Each structure stands twice: as C-alpha cells, then as structure tokens.
C-alpha cells in the first residue's frame, strides 16, 4: 500500500530572480521581468517589485499569485498603520510585519521568496532576506529565486566582509557607491541570464535613497 499522492498542487513556480544590495545611504533592489510556468514563458513584462512604504521596497520570486496576495495584505496593513500612527512604517518595522505575515500561514505557506530593501531609521541602506515562512535576517546583500545559486557566490566574492571578528568592525553595508552598486547588479543579472532559463527578458532596478525612489531598466537576453 503506497500512500496516495495529490493529483493537483495549489502551488506553481513562476521563476525569476531578485537581488538587493544595501549601501551607506542607498539601497538597490532588482529583479528580472520574466514570468514562466514549466518550460513556457507567460510574459516578458511582469514586475516582481512592490513599494510597500516610502522607505521599503519588496521584491519576491516564487509563485506570483501568492506574491500578489502577500503584497495586498501588507499594503492593507500599512494603511491601517498610517491611520493609527499618522506616519509611514519604517523599513525595520515592515521587515517584522512581513515576517509575522509569512509565519501566520506557517501551515499553508505563501510560496514567496522575498527580499526587502530600504532605508533604516538612520537613513542607511538595509536589506532583509526571508524564507517562505518568515525566517529573516538583516544582511548587506541578498539574492533569491531561480538564479540565486548563480548570483550569491558572485556577490559573496565582491561584497562579503572578511570576518565579523576582524577589527576594526566592518559594516555589512557595502562601501560601493550607488552607481557602482547598480552596475554590479546589472552584471549579476547579465551573468545569471546566460545559464538560468527562468531569468531574462528585462531587468528592473529600483534605487531608494534620501531623494526618493527611482527606476532603471536594462534589456536582458530573451532566450
């Protein structure tokens, strides 16, 4: 007697890769715009990046229906916060809210692999990285999604601080300038696109700094 298997799954993976890098006074959040299912492309023009608050931007890969639902829940909760506190949520607060929201569905999770980027209360760049059920950590950079295995080692080589035990203590945020960081991100995606079939079409880059939010686009290979 073999246990009966489900003939239907509530989940699907729409592929794609997301990356975020924190700087001294900026944060770069990027994702490709390809949405796929199986070996097919659904669209070449889908944004995985969502602005949750003035200083918090979330990028998510995984099952985009769950991602969309998650974005809506967080947007609604942010509205309530604004009504009650008369101000926008800070990025660390949003980070905790995202974690709690994900864990709330611990036993039927959002199939979403998230990276939250923004500016903390002091104006420094911050990046938070998550698993599907809400475990999170503040880091200097992160990558999630189908191309993460290709991008993360490269970012480790370029950005990772040598050791937390070294003196003087090195900040997790990169000393790179904003333009250097954007360039690095573009390089990451160009490389990931070469070997990951689920990553490509176009790159969307969101840059958050003291002046506000700005977007850049770059074409990627479409095969």
């Amino acid at each position: 007697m073999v246990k009966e298997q489900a003939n239907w799954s509530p989940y699907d993976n729409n592929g794609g890769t997301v990356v975020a890098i924190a700087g001294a006074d900026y944060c770069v959040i990027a994702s490709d715009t390809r949405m796929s299912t199986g070996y097919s492309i659904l669209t070449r023009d889908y944004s995985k990046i969502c602005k949750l608050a003035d200083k918090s931007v979330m990028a998510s890969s995984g099952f985009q229906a769950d991602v969309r639902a998650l974005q809506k829940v967080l947007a609604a909760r942010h509205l309530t916060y604004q009504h009650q506190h008369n101000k926008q949520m800070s990025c660390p607060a949003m980070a905790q809210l995202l974690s709690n929201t994900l864990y709330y569905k611990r036993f039927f999770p959002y199939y979403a692999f998230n990276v939250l980027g923004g500016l903390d209360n002091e104006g420094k760049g911050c990046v938070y990285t998550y698993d599907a059920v809400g475990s999170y950590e503040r880091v200097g950079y992160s990558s999630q999604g189908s191309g993460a295995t290709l991008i993360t080692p490269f970012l480790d080589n370029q950005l990772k601080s040598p050791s937390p035990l070294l003196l003087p203590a090195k900040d997790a945020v990169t000393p790179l300038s904003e333009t250097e960081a954007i360039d690095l991100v573009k390089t990451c995606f160009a490389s990931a696109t070469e070997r990951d079939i689920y990553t490509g079409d176009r790159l969307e880059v969101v840059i958050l700094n003291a002046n506000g939010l700005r977007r850049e686009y770059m074409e990627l290979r479409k095969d």
Partner: protein
Amino acid sequence: MFRNQYDTDVTTWSPAGRLFQVEYAMEAVKQGSAAIGLRSKSHVVLACVNKSNSELSSHQKKIFKADDHIGVAIAGLTADGRVLSRYMRSECINYSYSYESPLPVGRLVVQLADKAQVCTQRSWKRPYGVGLLVAGLDESGAHLYYNCPSGNYFEYQAFAIGSRSQAAKTYLERKFESFSTSSRENLLKDALFAIRETLQGERLTSSICTVAVLGVGEAFQILDQKTVQALIDAFEIAGEEAPAAEGDAPDQSAAGSGPTTDQGPPAEPDVAPMET
C-alpha cells in the same frame, strides 16, 4: 423633553410611536461642539470647532480620514465617533482589497446607517451618541452625507451639527445655492465663516478649529494650522482680497490634535458627559 415611563429601554415604544432613547441619542449630538460640511460639484470641505477643556489639555480629534476619497467629521460622543471611524477605515480597506477600487461613499453611509439601526433594536445595546458628516468623492462627483444615531442618513449640499449649529445653518442656507459652482477657495472661506457663526462673537483662530478638504484630484487631508490661519487672515480682512497662497503643502497631521486626554466637563444630571 422630560423623563417619562417609556424612555428607559431603546426597545420600548411610547404610545405616541416614539423611541425616546433614540431621540435622546440625537440630543447628545446637539450637545457636542459644532461640525459643518459643505460641497461643490468637485470639492467637499469639513470644518469643526475644536475647543479643549483647559489650556493644559489637547483638543479632541473630530475629523478623521477614512480613505483617500472619504473623510468624516463628528459631533457628540467622540469616543463613539472614533470607533465608527475605525469601522469606516476598515470597510474601505477591505473593499479596496477585494475589488481593487475605492468604496463608493454611498455604500459606506448605508452600511453606517444599518450599523446604527441595529443599536436601536437590541435591548442590550444603546444607540451611538454621535452624528457623522461624511464627505466623499465618487464618479459622479463630491458628496456630503449626514448619518444620525437613529440610523437615518441624508445627503446635503451643506449642513451643520452640534451646539450652536443653527447659526451656521442660517448662514449656509443664505449661501448654499452658490456652492455647487464655488471654487475650492470660496468653499473654504464659507466653511470658516460658518464656523465663526457658531462661535458667537469669539475670535476665530486656527487653534480652535480644524478644517479638512477633499476634491477631484485631491486626496482627503486635514489642513495644518499654518494654512488655516493664513486662510482666516486672508478672509477676515475686509473686502474681496484674494486668498493668500496655501503655504507649504498641507500635511496629513491633524491640526493641533493629540490623543484624547481631556477629562470632559463634570456631568450634569441628565446630560451624558462628553466634549464641549
């Protein structure tokens, strides 16, 4: 109105077919400090008198944003008003979540009215002691509604509720025919004049009133004290002088209001304690 043997429960009719508890609840609205609303085709202005009990305490918040396209001013038991505005916010958020579009204000007032009606037909409840002036924008333009503790609601071109509101109503009745085509600035001017009528000679300053505006292309916002004072100064100067520029972009913060920390006046025997 005097005490009688039919006024103890909201579920008891009087022989004349009246529900006294509901009528007493409407009395509570009349005791609250004044709130007025007026609208043109494209804008709605809400204004209220905001007097604190002492110099040491903050004012009570009487104007609330429910959504970008809906705001509400209250008069009466402000605690009831706070609870109802929380309900309104929640309804707006849930509707937007489900339908990805703003909750039509006409629906919201019906929901509020139904909620109020429930409290007039349960022996273990009491009617809400607050009147709500709901300002909203939908595809057909700007709207102003008044929601009563009785569960009735009416649409108005302009209205005033609360203590000494009759003076404001008289002013509005004289001028309401021009409101439909009024500019935003003139609407604000008329709102401030109407508020001044309720003050009975007391000097109008931005520290005792709150003004909020909503319009086509303009999300609901409570104007900050500086902007309001600039408007008062511009309009109180005699003559047809053009209104001063609006100053810095008015921000979201409720002008001068903080958490409701005031104690309320000592309760008279028949009057429920609430804000002045």
